[in-house]
């Protein structure tokens, strides 16, 4: 584990360099370049959100639909993108590990950061847009909203570590990730509030960190309008355990690495 806690300055420099490299490799230097970071998720999110809001009732269970969908769909995108970017990420970046100061963790951090930055810019930009046309109000409880979104980011990163680590060991990880990341939409808590569930099911659902984080995000968006069940302490513990497992898997993946 000590490898992860090397000199902070070196690590910041390395992660910064990897981040810039990642941006150039993914978005190129011609045309929009860096602008795609903002636009890519927006192109994804805005049409989907608009279609959903048209085909569904504007009020479901007495809750305004747009805040519900908006705050639910962007974390889905984050989760999917982070996970997909982590598939086999050690293998495809093996060449970077010839530079001794670069660790697997740095590469992970840079990839993850780019997705998070991209997602957060989309959150701000789409909020501004929907707020401007009157489809969204400011979150009622802003700190709670931030906390929920923070947990969402942590959850996506922790799952990314696990998926990335497993994908280096077995091809099953990659095959399972595709359907899982799609079905995730239905059991992540995106489309439900815990209060709508029967007691027994609610208990199980709330084991899932994403469900917890959604509850907190909803508490933040809707305030006292709904009863929510988010438990920040439990979520923090659960995510710590998942992160620890992910780090172990990732460290282990170094053993399986075959460079070019």
């Amino acid at each position, binding site marked *: 584990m000590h490898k992860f806690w090397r000199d902070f300055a070196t690590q910041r*420099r390395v992660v910064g*360099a*990897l981040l810039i*490299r990642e941006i150039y490799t993914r978005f190129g230097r011609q045309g929009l370049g860096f602008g795609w970071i903002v636009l890519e998720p927006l192109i994804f999110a805005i049409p989907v959100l608009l279609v959903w809001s048209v085909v569904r009732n504007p009020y479901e269970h007495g809750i305004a639909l747009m805040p519900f969908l908006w705050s639910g769909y962007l974390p889905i995108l984050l989760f999917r993108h982070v996970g997909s970017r982590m598939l086999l990420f050690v293998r495809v970046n093996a060449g970077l590990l*010839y*530079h*001794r100061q670069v660790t697997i963790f740095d590469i992970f951090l840079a990839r993850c950061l780019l997705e998070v930055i991209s997602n957060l810019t989309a959150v701000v930009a789409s909020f501004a847009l929907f707020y401007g046309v009157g489809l969204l109000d400011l979150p009622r409880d802003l700190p709670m909203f931030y906390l929920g979104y923070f947990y969402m980011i942590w959850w996506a990163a922790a799952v990314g570590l696990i998926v990335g680590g497993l994908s280096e060991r077995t091809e099953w990880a990659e095959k399972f990730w595709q359907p899982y990341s799609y079905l995730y939409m239905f059991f992540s808590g995106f489309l439900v509030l815990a209060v709508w569930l029967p007691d027994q099911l609610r208990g199980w659902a709330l084991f899932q960190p994403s469900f917890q984080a959604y509850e907190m995000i909803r508490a933040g968006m809707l305030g006292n309008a709904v009863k929510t069940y988010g438990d920040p302490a439990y979520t923090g513990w659960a995510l710590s355990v998942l992160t620890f497992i992910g780090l172990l898997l990732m460290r282990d993946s170094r053993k399986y690495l*075959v460079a070019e």
Partner: protein
Amino acid sequence: MISAIDVVKEYRTEGRVRRAVNGVSFNVARGEKLALIGRNGAGKSTLIRLLGGVELPTSGTIEQTMSVSWPLALQGGFQGSLTGNDNMRFIARIYNKSFDDIKAYVEDFAELGRYLSEPVRVYSIGMRARFAFALSLAIDFDCYLIDEVIAAGDQRFHRRSHEELFEKRADRSLILASHMGEIIKSYCSRALLMHHGRGSLFNDVDLALQAYNDL
């Protein structure tokens, strides 16, 4: 000093275990030049990857008290979709060196001119070799790992790379995987002959080349 002690590397392919490096031990002292010889598939490149630190040995240890370069090979150390300049920027950042210094050195040595602002993937093989070579020499290492790259490039590049590597950096260590007997004879003081994953160390390079030819 680099000391490899009883290094073993195994790969698992389709459920079978293949031992690419089988209990190899050697030392490379500061300033020493070691040749790595052997047929294709004998384990030279695996050993280079282990020494480069990108793969870990299955068992045994590799201790290093000097800085070791990334392998100077055709593909080593850069990203094809990035331009030469962006690759240099990346190297400058992670090694905490000035981009201008690196650029000046690479421009002078690799003589790629305007190609530096184009993606590396459009370079010819000779240009890539020049770029990779120049970029690794732009960073100061105690020991350079070289995987056959000297064979690429034109006459002028050969002359200049020999000058840079063997004359200006005569005090540095070198681990050189090559099939070119002449280069090995003129620069290396010892040789490690790899055969089926096993390594035999020769203090006499001529004897090593003789043994290699007799394989």
